[in-house]
């Protein structure tokens, strides 16, 4: 079998005394859609942020396409350009228009010419369903629109992996669907995705794997159907009973 696109070995992360991750090992194949769920403080977001090295692990290794992110000679900026990330709070650049948000990194990192990057940006805005908002500033967009621009911004780099850190948690209920539709569409296109989300509709529609984390460890790693219908662990059962209403 070929090298998995993400390989995590025995990952630990401490924040002072708090142990956010306690020995995570995980492999994600190219094209796989993985959904990570778990109670708050279980280390889901920390795990995600270790995959693009926004958090520096205390111990263990993360390999992306076989490259060790911890190694000194690894150019982390080059690696991150291949890993898109979508944040809970969108984190759009408020001083730039939607189009400029999407073209900035293409210009600065990818060094694409103006015409190419604007064409890419407009196509992506079309894909996420808001081509008419190209010249709007983030402050003029709804939460759902902002998150879709943020997804387009990450996709503009042509990443091989997309990480989603609770992308719908800061949204009003009526806007969750429009973001999830974009994510499902993306999953169907064969993108490798790791999503921290409690949107079970998304997990059922698109996920190949569902991982349940608790207290910094992976408790269950199975398919969405199995986890719902046949949870192996008491902790999982308890958690599911709380989030599935």
């Amino acid at each position, binding site marked *: 079998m070929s090298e998995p696109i993400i390989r995590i070995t025995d990952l630990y992360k401490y924040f002072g005394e708090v142990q956010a991750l306690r020995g995570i090992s995980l492999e994600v194949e190219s094209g796989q859609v993985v959904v990570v769920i778990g109670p708050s403080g279980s280390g889901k977001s920390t795990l995600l942020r270790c995959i*693009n090295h*926004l958090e520096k692990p205390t111990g263990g290794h993360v390999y992306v396409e076989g490259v060790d992110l911890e190694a000194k000679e690894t150019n982390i*900026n*080059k690696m*991150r*350009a*291949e*890993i*898109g*990330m979508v*944040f809970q*709070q969108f*984190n*759009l*650049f*408020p*001083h730039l228009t939607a189009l400029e948000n999407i073209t*900035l*990194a293409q210009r*600065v*990192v990818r060094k694409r010419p103006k015409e190419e990057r604007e064409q890419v940006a407009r196509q992506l805005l079309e894909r996420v369903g808001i081509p008419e908002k190209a010249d709007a500033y983030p402050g003029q967009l709804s939460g759902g629109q902002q998150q879709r621009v*943020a997804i387009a*911004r*990450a996709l503009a*780099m042509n990443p091989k992996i997309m990480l989603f850190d609770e992308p719908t948690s800061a949204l009003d209920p009526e806007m969750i669907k429009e973001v999830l539709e974009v994510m499902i569409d993306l999953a169907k296109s064969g993108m490798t995705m790791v999503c921290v989300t409690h949107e079970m509709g998304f997990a059922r529609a698109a996920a190949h794997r569902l991982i349940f984390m608790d207290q910094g460890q992976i408790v269950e790693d199975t398919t969405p159907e199995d986890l719902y219908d046949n949870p192996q662990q008491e902790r999982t059962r308890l958690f599911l009973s709380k989030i599935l209403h």
Partner: protein
Amino acid sequence: MTEAEGGSTTTIKARRSFGEQMREFPWWAVIIITFLIGAFIYMISDPSYRNALSFIAFPPTKTEIAFGIDVRNGLMMTLYTTVIAYLIALILGLVLGIMRVSRNPILYHLSTLYVELMRGVPMLVLIIWIGFVVVPFLRNATGNQSITGLQGALIGLGFGYAAYLAEVYRSGIESIPKGQMEAARSLGMGYGQAMQHVILPQAIRRVVPPLSNDLVAMLKDSALVSVVAVPEILQMARLYVSRTFRAFEGYNSAAFLYLVLTLLFIIIVRMIERRWRSSV
């Protein structure tokens, strides 16, 4: 949208009490401007005030005590000192402010040392020290007699203010949410690129009001350089008084000119701030 806003303001206005309306009207500006116009009319009609003003603004000899610099007049000297020293402070302050948030220990500690040192010394002491210690020392050390008191004064004022502006920039940078840097880095930008394209454009917009306040403060503090005999407004007034023994006319004229300049600066600064705000 503009129509709706216009409509709501009119309703609110109609409900405002007389006292509230009086509170909104800039009576203070009316009083100052009336006073200044009155003072100006009085001054130009009085020969000794006319002398004082023209001595400060249009001195009899252009290069009277000007270290070989072609000084037009005290008014221009004050403006020149303010603008040059402020530009020095703006640029040096930005560099120091970026160093202050750096994770590099050398850059951080160097800039912190500079800021604390400069803020720990009164501006007047700093200007005197540079004027009477550093400038003579450099002249002797380099044998270059062309280093002027004015240059020393500009350096003193500019470098001193840079420490204050550095803190303004730093607070601006730190006020930008952490997620901005993370988003930029997650797209593959380096720290410097993220700073340049994402953090600083936002941070600088936020600090335009405090920075422009410091420009007005700098205008007033430029009077300090009179202690090293830079022929700006206050120094020219002192010269006038020492020649004519007319302290009343001399210093009143100086105060009058400073007030006019300060008000002009405040108006300009408000206009700049409004433009910045509307562009965000």
